[in-house]
């Protein structure tokens, strides 16, 4: 049974992505019999390339993916290099993992309100410092270069990359490396960059690739923060797929294929940059310089992450204020009155989506965790090296959602699978599984094998050793992985909406539907609910091991 796990996992992930891509590729070349497309043609592509502003859409999708990832990675790396385990450093770390849990759309709404000309920041300094009685007519959110989109992406990418790095770090024994380098006279930040980073990067490379793929094709954040004339390619694609003029579907399919190409091009470009940087820094790594740049790097490393985390936090506070706001106009810093109306009005509509969200999240994450554990345990028992083909696990993260989901519904319909809860859960599994694997694999492989050897030598069977020794020892990373999985499931919009035909309503689908009404007070309520659920998951993941650990110790004494 266990031996089948890796194959099963890959089938579960590769089949849907492959089938979905196929069903997008065919219409991209004119084949869609239901609409009278029976012969292959290049017409969809001609129509696509005739769209005004296509080049700019493509350029912004490509650039926002690369720039935001580079910035986020730099911030995380320099923070780790500069962090010294002080109180502030530890609090930032603690703050960051719950931030990971907050859905993109919620952060984007809050962030937009923070930086808009009539937003929180402008209100804080108006009219006292600026003299503005009315909000200035400045184009900040939705700027044509996509800068606010990139900033929003960075806010969400930083917690993810930091968590992935923190999970990978222990196996590198960074303290030993640092101590050695310090004894040779390297200043701390430089020492970290020269001795730890070169070994750390290969371990977080796949997560970095996943971030690039996500950022080049993101829809929800781009809708809220991204440029509009023209929008990013992914936003255009969504519009074309939903266009009532049905001939647009051919072009939308071609555009989805183009999106895949852009994501791949961005990944290729990043890979080339990796090679370039490796060559360029080879000299610096070994030139023996011990101090140069220390202060600047340390300052940047500590402040950048602090700023981005506080921005994310401020965005949430803004949402919270709106959810209880009465009339509240610029330049008032606080609402004229507070009211619970918005919460009360939403109250009755919250129950059923909350239940569905919990159900879908728990089932898909439990399945994902079980499959990942089975794969890892199989690897351990067969003494296999982590396999190359396991990169297939990341396929759903590397192929943009928008490129295969529309095709996936057609594929599912064709084999008679109707939209329903089960299909939604299976769809969530596609995205939850890779993240659970990412979060758990290293901790699993790094667990000291001697614990299990001792257990076996005491006559315990393999499976008893797994259940009674390995799992309890891995409780903390297991719960974190579970919380990450839950957060991913809760945040899914497109898969839930498309695979459930809108019948499966989660807090996220409700939040997006309400967002169309642009009532910021209600958006505040729903975004907080959406953010609150995974937060609870993370709190539990952080506190449970301690509580259980304390119990264990009590039993022992």
């Amino acid at each position, binding site marked *: 049974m266990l031996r089948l796990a890796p194959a099963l996992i890959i089938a579960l992930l590769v089949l849907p992505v492959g089938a979905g891509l196929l069903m997008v590729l065919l219409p991209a070349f004119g084949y869609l019999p*239901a609409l009278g497309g029976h012969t292959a043609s290049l017409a969809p592509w001609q129509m696509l390339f005739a769209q005004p502003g296509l080049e700019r859409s493509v350029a912004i999708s490509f650039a926002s993916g690369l720039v935001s990832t580079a910035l986020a990675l730099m911030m995380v790396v320099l923070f780790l290099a500069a962090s010294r385990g002080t109180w502030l450093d530890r609090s930032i770390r603690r703050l960051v993992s719950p931030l990971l849990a907050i859905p993109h759309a919620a952060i984007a709404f809050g962030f937009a309100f923070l930086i808009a000309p009539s937003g929180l920041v402008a209100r804080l300094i108006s009219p006292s410092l600026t003299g503005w009685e009315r909000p200035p*007519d400045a184009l900040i959110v939705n700027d044509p270069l996509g800068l606010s989109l990139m900033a929003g992406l960075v806010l969400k990418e930083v917690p993810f990359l930091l968590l992935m790095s923190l999970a990978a770090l222990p196996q590198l024994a960074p303290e030993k490396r640092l101590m050695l380098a310090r004894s040779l006279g390297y200043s701390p930040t430089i020492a970290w960059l020269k001795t730890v980073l070169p070994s750390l990067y290969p371990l977080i490379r796949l997560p970095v690739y996943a971030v690039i793929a996500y950022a080049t094709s993101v829809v929800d954040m781009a809708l809220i923060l991204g440029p509009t004339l023209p929008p990013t390619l992914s936003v255009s694609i969504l519009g074309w797929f*939903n266009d*009532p003029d049905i001939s647009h579907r051919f072009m939308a399919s071609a555009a989805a294929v183009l999106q895949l190409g852009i994501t791949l091009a961005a990944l290729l470009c990043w890979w080339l940059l990796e090679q370039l940087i490796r060559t360029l820094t080879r000299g610096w790594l070994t030139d023996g310089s011990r101090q140069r740049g220390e202060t600047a790097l340390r300052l940047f490393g500590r402040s950048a992450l602090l700023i981005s985390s506080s921005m994310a936090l401020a965005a949430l506070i803004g949402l919270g204020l709106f959810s209880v706001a009465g009339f509240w106009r610029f330049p008032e810093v606080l609402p004229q009155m507070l009211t619970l109306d918005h919460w009360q009005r*939403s109250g009755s*509509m919250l129950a059923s989506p909350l239940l569905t969200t919990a159900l879908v999240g728990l089932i898909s994450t439990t399945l994902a965790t079980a499959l990942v554990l089975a794969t890892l345990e199989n690897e351990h028992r067969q003494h296999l090296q982590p396999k190359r083909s396991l990169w297939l696990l990341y396929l759903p993260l590397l192929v943009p959602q928008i490129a295969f989901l529309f095709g996936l519904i057609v594929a599912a319909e064709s084999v008679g699978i109707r939209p329903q809860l089960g299909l939604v859960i299976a769809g969530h599994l596609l995205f939850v599984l890779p993240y659970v694997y990412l979060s758990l694999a290293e901790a699993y492989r790094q667990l000291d094998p001697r614990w299990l050897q001792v257990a076996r030598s005491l006559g315990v069977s393999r499976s008893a050793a797994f259940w009674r020794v390995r799992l309890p020892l891995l409780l903390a990373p297991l719960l974190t992985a579970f919380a990450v999985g839950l957060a991913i499931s809760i945040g899914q919009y497109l898969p839930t909406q498309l695979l459930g035909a809108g019948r499966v309503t989660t807090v996220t*689908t409700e939040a997006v539907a309400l967002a169309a009404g*642009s009532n910021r007070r209600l958006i505040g309520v729903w975004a907080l609910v959406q953010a609150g659920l995974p937060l609870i998951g993370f709190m539990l993941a952080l506190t449970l091991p301690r509580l259980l650990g304390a119990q264990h110790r009590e039993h022992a004494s």
Partner: protein
Amino acid sequence: MPTDLNPLRGTFSTALATTLSTAMLALALPAMANPDPSDWQNVVAEAEGQTVYWNAWGGDTRTNRYIEWVAEQMQAQFGIEVEHVKLDDTGSAVARVLAEKQAGNSDDGSIDLIWINGENFAAMRENDLLFGPFAEALPHFALTNAAENPEVVTDFTLPTEGYESPWGKAQITFYYDSAQTEAPPQDMPSLLDWAEENPGQFSYPRIPDFTGSTFLKQALIELTEQDEALYQPVSESDFEAVTEPLWAYLDALHPHLWRSGRTFPDSGPNLRTLMSDGELSLAFSFYPTDAAVAVMEYELPESVRSYVLAGGTLGNVHFVAIPYNSPHKAGAMVLADFLLSPQAQAEKQSLAMWGDRSVLDIAQLDAADQALFQQGERHPSELPADALSNTLPEPHPSWMTALQDAWLERYGVN
């Protein structure tokens, strides 16, 4: 790993083959027998116990609350379960029916009723995605007095031919903060003057948004000399010549808009949020009661007032339609009929519930039913009741698409 992967490759290609062959097979299957709307008793009997999935835009909590009320009534009166599938874009429901048709699912679709009008209706009709005719056979349909009120059987100049049933009425309504603006503009030329004097305080939603596109049509009707051309398919007239005054107008207007016309609000409701933030001083909505509702919900100040342009504004009727592959057509028809009942229409029109105008010919109702429509005092931010008589009919739907394409061509890249 290669050994582990081998069986997988087999499964993958087999599954693909199955996928394709099933798709082709399904295309050949005949549809199930549809309920006959003229035999109403049978329809009601068949409907009992069905679950109707009603796909309707879900961006407004008041609409959502009304639909919830409808669902309760349907359960109590007919034993029909109504599930509101909340959409962020009605186009996505059209796309869903299309995807089902593409996959050969012709009798077990996922949508039973859809809130629709205009170009979405035109697109679904053109591709035979709707069930019908059924609307004129609904018992309550007679109350609309269609002979006198042709707008309930005409959707953007297209005859509905019974493929959708009227539900409510909308009309472009402007609103402004009377504490900041004394004399709001009353027609398109004075709107331009007003924008020049108050730069950055007016805008319209980005095309292809529905409300934004309606603004283009509104401006075109006022500016062009060739009004009659707008009520024919666009292919029958000289598009450039008819729309020339519109583009000249927009070229002049855009530099004075919010953000100098370099970006536009993303939807009709978004205009309201910008009013609320104090970024705009003048805005418009498709729902005449929108401003009053926003005041009640703390979004706008109490000094907000609504009005209709001097020469009238565009108005239209919104409908419900049944996709051709709905498995619960009987339930959907009973629901569409209930929506036309005086009880449901009056509840919908009440400002405390939703505030959407009725499609019934209220003067023709009997006294008891007329009494249902008596409202309490008018909200000060609401439009005076007589203002809405000045309704301009919607142009042919092909104009909407043509205007959208031309706008994107001109202003889509800044």
